[in-house]
């Protein structure tokens, strides 16, 4: 497929690498989420994630481990961006804030998996395709929008009210990040009235190929 057909080609170039060769279910779903976002746009990520988690059938531990994998990605992305994104001033302050928030999400989700009696997934290695501030910001925008959509897709599957509350608390912060990054890009901060499509059935047909 050529880049011209992709909605977000930058997402297609993100590498999720598992050195242990023990590719976790969470990593598989994350790769599918990135592919779905790359091809169909970030709004489609939510329905894809929900369906993929439903098919894996592992309950809250699996859902939180998927969220943890997503936060690993965001946390690594911003930690690296402090050195690599060529940011200064206000943008540097924003990156610091985002890096700190995502790291706190990683810690909270790790603790949540343990509380639920599960084993937190290991952090994969990531490779982020950007080479300047502009391409960093573009990728940051699609990551944040992907994160919002992924959480919104996954949350209705969560059984524990406490875990649902925590996921809601995190997704609102991701949405705030998304808006802030979009302002940096002079893009509409809240491009649609709904952060996941209301007609999921229609969407699922499109993303079916990514459902492992």
């Amino acid at each position, binding site marked *: 497929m050529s880049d011209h057909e992709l909605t977000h080609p930058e997402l297609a170039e993100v590498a999720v690498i598992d050195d242990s060769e023990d590719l976790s279910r969470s990593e598989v779903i994350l790769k599918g989420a990135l592919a779905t976002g790359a091809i169909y746009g970030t709004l489609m990520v939510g329905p894809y994630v929900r369906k993929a988690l439903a098919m894996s059938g592992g309950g809250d531990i699996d859902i939180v481990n998927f969220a943890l994998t997503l936060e690993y990605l965001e946390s690594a992305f911003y930690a690296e961006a402090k050195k690599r994104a060529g940011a200064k001033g206000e943008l540097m302050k924003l990156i610091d804030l985002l890096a700190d928030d995502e790291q706190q999400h990683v810690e909270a989700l790790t603790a949540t998996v343990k509380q639920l009696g599960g084993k937190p997934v290991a952090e994969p290695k990531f490779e982020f395709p950007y080479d300047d501030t502009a391409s960093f910001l573009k990728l940051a925008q699609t990551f944040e929008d992907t994160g919002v959509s992924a959480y919104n897709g996954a949350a*209705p599957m969560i059984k524990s009210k406490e875990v649902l509350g925590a996921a809601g608390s995190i997704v609102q912060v991701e949405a705030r990040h998304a808006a802030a990054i979009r302002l940096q890009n002079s893009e509409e*901060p809240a491009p649609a009235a*709904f952060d996941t499509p209301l007609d999921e059935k229609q969407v699922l047909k499109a993303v079916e190929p990514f459902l492992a």
Partner: protein
Amino acid sequence: MPESTQAGVSRRKFMAVGGGSVALAAFLAACGDDSGTTTTTSSMPAKSSGQTSETEQFGKGDIGILNYALTLEYLETAFYADVVKSGLFKGKDLAVIKKFGEEEAEHVDALTAAVKQLGGKPAPEPKAEFPLEDAKSVTELAATVENLGAAAYLGQAANIESPEVLASALAIHSVEGRHAAVLNTLLGKSITPDGAFAKPADAKTVLESVEPFIVG
């Protein structure tokens, strides 16, 4: 491929929500005022007591939660409509306010449809008045309203029974969060005032905050 797939949501433009007019500003001002006295108005349903959830005054279970959200979205829509009419904003800021107002109107439509789908009766549109004195205080009121709105949705997430209703509420919740972040940015405030984890607000707190803007 479009980013937004919103089949099922009426794209009908929101029609002058506030038969009234002044709704927006008062709304904002009241929200930010912790010390303000609250007045009882006829439009708000009587508060429930005891163990019943505050949203039950709007209906049982998910219908009550949706009607509670609908009431808040009516207020937000009226607020933005009044702000647009006030002439206090121009250019980019006006465009932001118009866009947010349109999105709140879409939330009104979606929530109205959701209540009907569940076999409930949509809550009536409250009449509201908002203080609209100058751009700064109005922006502050807008930020207060959006942060409160986001917290209100978060506060209900765990109370919602139907996964479909929860999905819809979450799809709106994060948009309110985006709005809040933009308004906070306009004011030079933190985009994440609660830190890495947003805090919820219960219905009682939220309803008490908006009550001063409801006039009948």
